[in-house]
């Protein structure tokens, strides 16, 4: 059962792969935090929604992987905008705690809407089973490489969007200094809608990528929640490059924990990482600058 030291290269590789996928929803969480200043637990439910949207496209409509992933992004993004506008936006003025608690309630509500439609059964994507590639003593599945490529493209597009487009710059401005941004005439409501679309879309895409590896059910997103938060906190809550660094660290730490812990304790590793970082360096590895 327990992994041995000889497995370390394989574990590190697996950790980097799962970390890259984890980075996608972690960026979503941290982006919402950077602009709207509250930890939105509903990312978990949007990850589930994305996973199911992608699943329906892939199995019922027979779409290939990439269009299915795009649909997962779109579906979760649209639900994210609507649920935030209707449910969370009116509660934000009541303060941080109210908004946070409301996001937990929203998470449970959305999860159960999915359950109402699907039941609790585990579902699998319709993907060809491929033989693993081997080189230099490590194994890689072609499917993993494709997942990694999708995650990497999504992250690269996001960085380009934030860096080079006017809207991306406006988002960074609001995250950096909301009052100054308002003075310059940036519409905060508009930015909130955009951030929710992009961030919850990423959560949905991340949920699908997480689901591709295993099976999906209404709790798919919730099971990943601690790891997603761990990635964002380790990297520095509110920092987008931080979320990437944090996700890779948490991914590798989770895999390396197999050397000393049974696999069921992966989730606890995320919690321990949060405790460790908050005790030693509360601002996270990269600090709190949004970009």
């Amino acid at each position, binding site marked *: 059962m327990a992994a041995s030291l000889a497995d370390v290269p394989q574990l590190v590789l697996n950790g980097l792969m799962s970390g890259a996928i984890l980075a996608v929803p972690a960026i979503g969480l941290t982006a919402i935090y950077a602009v709207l200043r509250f930890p939105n637990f509903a990312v978990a439910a949007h990850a589930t929604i994305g996973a199911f949207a992608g699943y329906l496209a892939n199995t019922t409509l027979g779409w290939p992987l990439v269009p299915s992933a795009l649909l997962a992004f779109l579906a979760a993004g649209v639900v994210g905008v609507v649920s935030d506008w209707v449910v969370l936006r009116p509660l934000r003025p009541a303060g941080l705690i109210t908004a946070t608690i409301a996001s937990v309630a929203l998470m449970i*509500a959305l999860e159960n809407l999915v359950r*109402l439609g699907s039941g609790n059964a585990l579902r699998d994507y319709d993907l060809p089973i491929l033989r693993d590639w081997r080189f230099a003593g490590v194994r890689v599945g072609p499917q993993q490489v494709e997942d990694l490529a999708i995650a990497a493209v999504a992250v690269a597009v996001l960085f380009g969007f934030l860096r080079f487009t006017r809207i991306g710059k406006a988002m960074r401005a609001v995250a950096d200094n909301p009052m100054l941004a308002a003075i310059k005439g940036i519409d905060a409501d508009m930015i909130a809608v955009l951030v929710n679309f992009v961030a919850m879309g990423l959560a949905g895409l991340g949920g699908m990528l997480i689901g591709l590896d295993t099976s999906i059910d209404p709790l798919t997103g919730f099971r990943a929640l601690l790891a997603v938060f761990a990635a964002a906190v380790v990297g520095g*809550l509110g920092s987008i490059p931080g979320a990437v660094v944090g996700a890779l660290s948490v991914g590798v730490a989770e895999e390396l924990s197999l050397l000393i812990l049974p696999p069921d304790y992966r989730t606890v590793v995320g*919690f321990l990482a949060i405790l460790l970082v908050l005790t030693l360096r509360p601002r996270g590895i990269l600090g709190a600058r949004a970009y």
Partner: protein
Amino acid sequence: MENYLVAMGVTAGIYALMALGVNLTWGMAGMVNLGLAGFFAVGGYATALMTKAGVAIPVGVAAGAVVATCAGAGVALVTARLRADYLAIVTLGFSESVRIVASNELWLTNGSDGIAGIPGPWRGTLSPGAFNLLFLAIVLLVLGAVVSMMQRLATAPFGRVLRALRDDEDVAAVAGKPVLLFKLKAFAIGAGVLGLAGALYAHYTSYIAPDIFAPLLTINIVLALVLGGVGNNMGAIAGAVILVALLEGTRFAAPLLPFLSAAQIAAMRELLISGLLLVILRVLPGGIVPERISR
């Protein structure tokens, strides 16, 4: 039917205890606790293990409360200096970690099968009806003691400092109050009350398992408190009673929807609870019995 009402009364009493514990940390001190199910679990498991090993029930219950207090102090210690959002994340992480440990450490907690056969006071010698009544009396006694303690705390200088640092931490600090120490104490006491409730629950039902401590329990208690009025001890109790009546009511509604599967019925229930919480936060933020600020 009487038996059923008494059992509902016990559940409402235990929920009220939890709501009181949360009211101290959230309502008075302004610290969110999304992992309250975890502290409830810690108290329940502690007393279950001890009383099954032969310790007297009151000692086990007290130990459950103490263990939960220590766990609360630990969590507060890590996050006391940070903004409230980190506390939300860490407390949720704490309760999930407790759940995972309880599901996996078979030698200690018997995994997801849970611990059965936890002793209750005179369970063997009394009839089930009499046992329920006795337990209701015990829960009401404990509840009365905790309420009077909470009311004392609320009007004592301790409670005033908590409300001050909830409303403005810097002002409280400038007034010379050791803010961190106060937050730590408030969170630890609140966690202790949650542990006490968990211990009582374990002895009442004689059975605990990781499933019971799902995040929905946290939402239930938050709803009870929001419903009754955050910051008000009487509101916490009123909210718990209404919530239990509501939860039991959904049991009778389920047969009216025969076309839904068991999983869908459960989903409808969770949807109702979480939806109701969102609606109340929106339309009745002060709850039924809003906090009265005395001068």
